[in-house]
């Protein structure tokens, strides 16, 4: 892909990622936020946080399955948009839902497992966002940076639990989201195992040393 193509792709991702916010603003302007606007806004932002997070997490499995690599340059952009929506989702909870009732929010974080999971997911996203710059990658070193950014797997699991535990009986979309998280993480695990086995096969003829490690 040429430079033009890369720019067009990034512009496209920007537009798609900002569209939910534009739609929300339009619905607010046309007084179309349902009878319970605060709940609607919270759910809307939460849904889009999860969707963008899932699309960021889908880039690597897409490479594993298809061998295509052009999409890998979108990881940072999608990851930062997921953080952006998560921050908005959280701000609405503080500002509109609880209106700075800190004691009640603190009690909820401790006592309500789904809120604990949501807080944990957001907290884990913060260091990822902070270290997303190229300068930071250099400062940390590629290996350390990579290790740190595996936190996103924990974020995905927390997000899935957050949704599973808050959804009421009768809903089904929380299972779909959890299933996609399982699929995306499962594909990575499968790929890592496959590569480790291949490495072992390649190493074995040349070395008589015990093969204890499966991953380097």
């Amino acid at each position, binding site marked *: 892909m040429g430079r033009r193509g890369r720019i067009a792709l990034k512009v496209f991702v920007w537009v798609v990622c900002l569209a939910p916010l534009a739609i929300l603003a339009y619905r607010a302007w*046309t007084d*179309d936020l*349902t*009878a*319970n606007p*605060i*709940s609607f806004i919270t759910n809307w932002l939460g849904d889009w946080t999860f969707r963008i997070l899932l699309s960021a997490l889908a880039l690597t499995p897409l490479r594993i399955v298809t061998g295509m690599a052009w999409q890998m340059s979108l990881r940072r952009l999608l990851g930062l948009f997921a953080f952006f929506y998560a921050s908005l989702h959280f701000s609405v909870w503080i500002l*509109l*839902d*609880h*209106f700075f*009732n800190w004691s*009640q929010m603190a*009690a*909820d974080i401790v*006592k*309500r*497992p*789904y809120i604990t999971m949501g807080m944990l997911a957001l907290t884990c996203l913060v260091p990822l966002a902070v270290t997303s710059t190229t300068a930071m990658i250099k400062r940390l070193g590629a290996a350390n940076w990579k290790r740190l950014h595996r936190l996103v797997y924990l974020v995905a699991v927390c997000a899935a639990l957050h949704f599973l*535990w*808050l959804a*009421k*009986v*009768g*809903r*089904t979309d929380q*299972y779909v989201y959890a299933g996609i998280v399982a699929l995306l993480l499962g594909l990575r695990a499968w790929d890592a195992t496959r590569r480790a086995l291949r490495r072992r096969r390649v190493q074995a003829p040349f070395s008589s040393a015990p093969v204890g490690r499966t991953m380097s």
Partner: protein
Amino acid sequence: MLIRRAPQFRSSEITPERFYLDRRAFIAGAGALAVAASERRADAAPAAPQGAALKAARNDAFSVKDAPTKFESATTYNNFYEFGVNKEDPARLAGTLKPRPWTVKVDGLVAKPKTFDIDELLRAFPLEERVYSLRCVEAWSMVIPWIGFPLQALLKRVEPTSQAKYVAFTTLLDPEQFPAQRKGFFNLGGLDWPYTEGLRLDEAMHPLTLLTVGMYGHVLPNQNGAPVRVVIPWKYGFKSAKSIVRISLVADQPKTAWNIAAPSEYGFYSNVNPEVSHPRWSQATERRIGEFRRRSTLMFNGYGDQVASLYAGMDLKKFY
């Protein structure tokens, strides 16, 4: 006696004459934007009640002073799982429910079991309007001007026997009229249909327990449980069964739909209680629909003076 006129529209909703006279120009000018906007809102409920008007005097002794929730909110933000799990599903899909003809069978441990035609039920007992607050277990609330009569009037008519200890309500079972009653794979999205609810006999006989046939001066909209439902204002909203076809007096505590689905979350009593949390969220506060700040939830939804004695000596943390 004060006969209240049904609220139909506010003066603020009347179109000024100059706009009315200029309406062609206005329509042309508004153009595509207005069309797009109106199409978006086409499935939304009207801002004012429709359907047959019901005359009923307000019973102030049984009414709260709070301003009623906007009619549009009360008819577009509903939990009625027979139409789907989303709040907007009932308003969108309730057209399939046919509230006429309709009968309500009152049977079980009674001396005079009887099946009432809905229109007979409307005439048999004097209707009154009561403004109750409605607290949903999901921590939101509304204020609704209901029209109905005390359930006790109906129960006395059929003469419960001394063995009758509980009252069981059954909602209509008909997948043709209630699309969500059609079971998909594993019935993931559903409750055990038909929807069932229940009360202890003394709760059912309490003067606050209202057999309800209307709201906002008109017959019940389909999405609010037409043609007849029960309203028990000191309990979470799901106790107030909708579209009732059967009321049975029984000896043992009846099985109830939400209790079957999630027994640790929804107890048989389900009295509004700010001190007993739902396992997943606090019940200490609620959002009144139409208000910005949360308000404190009151014990028994503010009806403690009238109903607390029903539960004297009971551990309400255990019997949640």
